[in-house]
């Protein structure tokens, strides 16, 4: 009865450790509000997030506005038809591409050291497209949007940045 095979013993020990780990993780979640070490969106491919330079990660921040309000603000700002999912996260965008040269100035006078960037908490709201397209230059083929994302300020409810387009 007590003679277990080595393999089975290891499995039981592993299950025990797993239970302890789950309990510990649950405790951490209850204390901090952070559910995991990563945040992901089921409705948007990670390659799309990478392409648009948006990084999201867990946040312990609290939101002044409710999730419902955030979703409503997102829908209006992006002229969308319905919410696919939303999550409160730490959001970062605006400097994902190669390290800028701080003093670079364009022929028109634009300066790369005055970038519009964001790093902080936001509601990430994935929306259903209202049939948005891109036409590109006159004469090119029309493309349908497959994703719509709105980053909503959890304190003011304003749109921080919207993203939409086509992708995997």
């Amino acid at each position, binding site marked *: 009865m007590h003679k277990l095979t080595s393999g089975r013993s290891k499995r039981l020990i592993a299950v025990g450790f797993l239970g302890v780990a789950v309990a510990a993780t649950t405790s951490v979640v209850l204390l901090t509000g952070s559910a995991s070490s990563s945040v992901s969106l089921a409705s948007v491919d990670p390659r*799309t997030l990478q*392409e*648009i*330079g948006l990084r999201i990660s867990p946040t312990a921040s609290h939101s002044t506005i409710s999730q419902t309000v955030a979703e409503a603000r997102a829908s*209006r*700002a*992006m*002229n969308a038809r319905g919410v696919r999912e939303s999550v409160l996260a730490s959001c970062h965008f*605006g*400097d*994902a*591409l*190669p*390290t*800028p*040269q*701080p003093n*670079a100035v*364009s*022929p*028109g*006078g*634009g*300066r*790369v*050291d*005055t*970038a*519009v*960037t*964001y*790093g*902080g908490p936001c509601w990430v709201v994935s929306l259903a497209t*209202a*049939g*948005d*397209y*891109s*036409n*590109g*230059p*006159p*004469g*090119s*083929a*029309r*493309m349908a*949007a497959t994703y719509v994302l709105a980053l909503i*300020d959890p304190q*003011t409810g*304003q*749109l*921080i*940045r*919207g*993203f*939409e*387009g*086509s*992708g995997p």
Partner: protein
Amino acid sequence: MAIALIALGSYAGHAFASCNPGRSSGVIGYWWDGWKRPASNIPNGNLGDTYSRILEASPYVESPSFDTTAWVMLTNGSGSYAQIGWYKVPNGARNVFMEYTDQNGNFHRSLGAPYPVGNFTPYEVWWDAGNQRLDFFAQNMLFGTAIRYFTIKEAQQSAETHTLDSQMPEGTNSHEEFTFSTVSNLAGSTYNFDGASGGLATVQITNATIQDAVRASTHTRIDTWDKACTN
């Protein structure tokens, strides 16, 4: 890089100079009025920048439409491009938008806080050779960046609508203006959008002359408007 957290937010103010042209509703399509400048007509034969101060307008956008915009663009002349300008959707929300295509031909659009209606906002797309990326500027601030996957063959500046009854920005008494419009080559030399003399270097682009109008009034300015509206 200095990190500038800009107060952003969608602007959904009252329509300004908004006019329903009263044409047939629900007719979805693509109408544009503007001009383009091929790289081959620029000294050195190449192109790395286009710039214009565009009037922030707030035209009537019919509900079946998805947007009305005015923008500057670098493109290969077919399906790949990088553009920035203002953007309005049927529910009244206005924003700055930038848009580009990636290596797979997908498009990506980013929307941020708009500039006030009635102002002239500098918009610019620049091939930033030092950083090997496309830079998109609004009000001379870097709004966004993108990797370039195409050969830059021409610059375009245009307004566009997506239903027949959506108003091409502005009207007969108050035009949508693209001002101080320029192109620059890869050496950084800047030229009037319409060429240094004669106005022969650019081509007006329009498919909407029945209901809209487009006119280059100087070498650096082009106007568009909706014939059915006064402003």
